[in-house]
């Protein structure tokens, strides 16, 4: 029975992952041995030998290194430094202003950066010391930034959404548009958490406004021009049709380089660092993608996804029951895996099922990226928390940051609930295109 082979394959995959074989190599090993078992060695070589080349030589995927480069340059050259000041100046009379300002700044940074780790790192370095000085508990301050960083992968550009779009064969731009809504929704609910906390627990989030007489709102707003200019270049060109979503990454990277140079912020060390991080991230991501593409072929041959699909339609799971399964699945995976591994291991199984169930793949892309981002702040492996721990190590331990994240996790669950109950909220913007 080939379905059984599929089940053994999935089991073997988890064994290999558990003994710390890199995700990409585990996927490749299972697929290769699985196809060999089913068809013999020669057909297996024939089917899989071209996958590394054919998967990577993708035009859409070329946006991944470009958007990464743009974000890393913006981060290391400090193009986004003005965002936090501007948000502080505008919000200074609001209770919990500093924390809300840092969440807003995360959202602004997200528009030029596709990665939640870079967003968390950039804001953590800037905002955590200031919040602690203003009387916030270090746990709450670091938790707010760790959570705020996840907005980086929700508001476009988003590396996770590009990769999803490639695998689901859907329009990346449409997933991006849905990402705008869920990103803003997340930022609003996080701000509500801050407001409630400063009201209920003034000891951990002081409600008093920022005492900043020297903060001139107009002056502070002029300092966000580098980010605004970059956004106008990338999204203006994108939506006016001067260049495609794929090309927007390259234009954005050149734009970030040019702006940083014009601001005299560009040094060789920054350039080198941005390139190294882009290369590490792209190469480690693409090889997982190669593994996932092989795994998709293997699962296709076993008929396992069809069988699971049959079980699900046979069980007549309602939409809400199916969603409950999906949410729990990703929350559990997110506790242990980084988002790309979790995404690429699950999509080969889930996409055919969702297609059969008639679920909108644009909407699902937005939901799944949100669920994966929740995994960035859940213990024991919460990468955003580790990053904050790295950039603000003198303020809080990993355990304290995880504790500070809890109220924001509750807000995340509310966002997920809204998205599931009212899919049309997410699909409104994509439907305009």
């Amino acid at each position, binding site marked *: 029975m080939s379905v059984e082979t599929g089940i053994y394959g999935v089991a073997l995959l988890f064994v*290999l*992952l*558990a*003994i*710390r*074989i*890199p*995700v990409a*190599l585990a996927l*490749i090993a299972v697929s*290769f041995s699985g196809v060999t078992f089913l068809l013999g060695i020669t057909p297996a*070589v024939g089917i*899989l*030998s*071209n996958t*590394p*080349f054919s998967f*990577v*030589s*993708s*035009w859409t995927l*070329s946006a991944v*290194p*470009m958007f*990464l*480069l743009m974000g890393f340059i913006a981060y290391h050259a400090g193009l986004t430094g003005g965002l936090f000041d501007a948000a502080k100046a505008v919000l200074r009379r609001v209770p919990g202003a500093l924390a809300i300002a840092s969440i807003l700044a995360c959202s602004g940074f997200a528009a030029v950066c596709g*990665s*939640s*780790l*870079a967003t968390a790192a950039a804001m953590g370095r800037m905002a955590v010391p200031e919040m602690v000085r203003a009387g916030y508990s270090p746990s709450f301050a670091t938790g707010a930034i760790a959570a705020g960083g996840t907005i980086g992968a929700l508001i476009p550009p988003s*590396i*996770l959404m590009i990769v999803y779009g490639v695998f689901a064969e859907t329009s990346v731009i449409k997933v991006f548009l849905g990402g705008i809504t869920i990103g803003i929704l997340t930022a609003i609910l996080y701000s509500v958490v801050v407001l409630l906390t400063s009201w209920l627990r003034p000891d951990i989030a002081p409600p008093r406004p920022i005492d900043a007489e020297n903060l001139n709102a107009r002056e502070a707003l002029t300092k966000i021009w580098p980010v605004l200019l970059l956004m106008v270049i990338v999204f203006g060109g994108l939506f006016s049709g*001067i*260049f495609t979503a794929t*090309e927007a990454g*390259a*234009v954005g990277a050149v734009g970030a380089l040019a702006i940083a140079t014009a601001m005299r912020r560009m040094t060789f060390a920054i350039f080198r660092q941005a*390139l*190294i991080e882009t*290369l*590490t*991230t*792209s*190469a*480690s*991501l*693409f*090889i*997982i993608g*190669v593994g996932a593409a092989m795994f998709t072929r293997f699962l296709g041959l076993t008929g396992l996804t069809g069988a699971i699909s049959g079980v699900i339609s046979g069980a007549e799971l309602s939409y809400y029951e199916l969603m409950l399964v999906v949410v729990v699945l990703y929350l559990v995976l997110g506790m*242990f895996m*980084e988002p*790309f*591994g979790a995404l690429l291991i699950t999509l080969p199984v889930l996409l055919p099922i969702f297609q059969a169930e008639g679920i909108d793949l644009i909407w699902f892309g937005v939901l799944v990226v949100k669920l994966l981002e929740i995994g960035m702040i859940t213990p*024991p*492996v919460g*990468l955003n928390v*580790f*990053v904050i721990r*790295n950039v603000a190590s003198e303020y809080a331990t990993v355990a304290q940051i995880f504790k500070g994240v809890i109220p924001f996790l509750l807000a995340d669950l509310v966002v997920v609930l809204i998205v599931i109950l009212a899919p049309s909220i997410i699909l409104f913007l994509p439907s305009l295109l």
Partner: protein
Amino acid sequence: MELIFRIRDMSLTALAVIGAAAILALMLHIMADVVLRNSINQPVPATYEIVTNYYMVALAFVPLAWLERTGGMVSVEVINGFLGPRTRDLSDRLVALISTVIYSALAWVTFEASLKTFVSGTFVMAQSLAIPTWPAYFLPPLGFALAATVTLTRIFLPYQQKAAEAGAIT
């Protein structure tokens, strides 16, 4: 011994430099295409073909060995906390052994595929321009073979892996 390590690390850095060069070439090539297409209605010929077949393949596969050395490969770190130093060392060697087998198999399989494209002189047509793509097919086996040599040395000389977050991507 010291000298061998230095040579190895320099060669691995060279791989990263090739990957970085591919990233920059990708950026400049697409940018030039966008600018020329929109200004003088004259796109850079074969942009799509060169980006997908050369830059992307180079930046994905050439740096693999460097990635293995710098701890950039992503793995699941669930059992890390439960490992003592000795089991940890053994587990590192086991991971290195299995990785070497997988990389070698990949190198062999993709090399066979690249030989086929070499024999047939595979190319793609961009308008009236024939772009040979067969040389690019040798990049994956090259990258896998180099990665295999790095993991092979790790079976005998495991080194301290960086902390969990080092393997994080985005």
